């Protein structure tokens, strides 16, 4: 029943790549970020940076298995075909890359390319670090994203939460830490 109404978004993909348990809490509608200063700062950063760009675009697509997908993109440069994702720091860099690849995948699934037929690319922006990183969607990523979507779909109907991460150091910065270990 849940899986029917389930829409998988980029944040969930990022959560899942970091920690399946965090994704499970999130799927249950249990949010912890309201307490987090880091998340509040991130939101403010999003509001206050890149004021001149097209911001907050929403795209929808379907995974090959029919799961509805949705992406809320921070900002895009449509002319150059670049999707941007703004982040505060690099601590979850891998999850950030996958979040962005997921958005690129949504465009790919919808058959959207630049006017000259070149696929969109992505860019992670770290305004506080004054760094950017280019992210590309390669053919080998399709299958990985497909697998992640399938895993999240089954996580959504799983009765009990997945175990906590074995590597506790990851949890120290997570807003769910107290929910898992408190």
């Amino acid at each position, binding site marked *: 029943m849940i899986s029917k109404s389930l829409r998988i978004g980029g944040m969930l993909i990022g959560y899942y790549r970091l920690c399946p348990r965090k994704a499970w809490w999130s799927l*249950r*509608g*249990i*949010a912890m970020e*309201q*307490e987090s200063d880091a998340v509040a700062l991130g939101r403010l950063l999003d509001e206050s940076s890149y004021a001149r760009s097209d911001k907050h675009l929403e795209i929808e697509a379907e995974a090959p298995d029919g799961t509805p997908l949705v992406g809320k993109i921070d900002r895009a440069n449509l002319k150059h075909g670049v999707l941007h994702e703004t982040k505060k720091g690099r601590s979850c860099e891998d999850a950030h890359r996958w979040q962005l690849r997921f958005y690129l995948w949504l465009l790919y699934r919808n058959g959207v390319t630049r006017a000259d037929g070149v696929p969109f690319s992505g860019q992670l922006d770290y305004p506080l670090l004054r760094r950017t990183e280019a992210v590309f969607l390669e053919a080998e990523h399709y299958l990985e994203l497909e697998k992640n979507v399938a895993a999240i779909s089954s996580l959504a109907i799983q009765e*009990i*939460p997945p175990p906590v991460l074995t590597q506790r150091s990851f949890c120290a910065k997570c807003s769910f*830490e*107290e*929910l*898992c*270990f*408190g």
Partner: protein
Amino acid sequence: MKRPYYLFSSGRLKRQHNTLALEKTSGERLPDDSPEDEGVPSSLPDGGRTQFPIESVDSLFLFGEIDINSKLITFLGQQGVPAFFFDYYGNYSATLYPRENLLSGRLRIQQAHHYLSPKRRLTLAKAFVEAALFNIERVIKYYQPRLEGDAQQETQATLQALVRDRGALPLTTDIFTLMAVEGRIRDRYYKLWPHFLGKEVASKFPMNKRERRPPSNELNALISFGNSLCYSTVVRQIYRTALDPTIAFLHEPGDRRFSLSLDIAEIFKPLLVDRAIFRLLKTGEINSKHFEKHLGGCYLSDAGRKIFVQHWDERLSKTVHHRALDKKVSYERLIRLECYKLIRHLSDPAGNTYQGLHMWW
């Protein structure tokens, strides 16, 4: 950093330019239960005004006579600030509980399921009583080494009864018995209070038994006031989680509106309320002049409530080292962690079985 605000003044609390302002009145507050009361404020604003930034307000404790309007209610709702009202005598009277913003349908269903299944409900109810008894034991053991003679023997006997009853909890088969066990231990525990307080204090403040509505003497007045502070502090922590405050396990939903708060408060009363009372009486910070008699009951005076609340606030921010989190957490945060433990249990009763807080310090 958000914090609770405790307002003792009377007046009109209003929204003003996106923040909060209290227009104070200076006249004396009149009891709010007189039959000919017209519902008008006891006195009018005298021009005094205090403003406080809404961003810093976690919750409001209103001990004075406060006039509010729906603009303020909407504002507090938007900001997610619960407000707790206390009557003329300092009794808890109501909560303005903003619309829930952290709902989780699945968790709520689990919570109801754990209430409806007698076995599951009993498991949780037992855990609350078990932890409450454990923490009472800790308080008793703290004072026991200083006692001599009869007091020592009586304390020893109570401890033995407590340990025996706590050990027998797993065999309990119904909530009613569970409540009776807790009540019995608490009665014996209250009888030890004169020993804990010492002869001098105990002679001024006798403790026979727990009597509420109205509290019959000074100690009962302190317990009642402390318990209502504890209850509302727990409510304010539950509000910050996805738990449904109305579905409880030890208490019946409907014992009070937010009955889950009564369950969780049982665990925290010994360390928050009881120890606060001992401290305030033993240091003489609260003494005979801080009590008033009304209509056959004994209540803390306004000045007494201020002293209690100030100490309460300090106590909540005391910290202990939490082993699993490897950081310091405040007593108040421990209440939140208790909510999280409950969420873990509701999500995975076999893998994350709930055990109530055992004071480890």
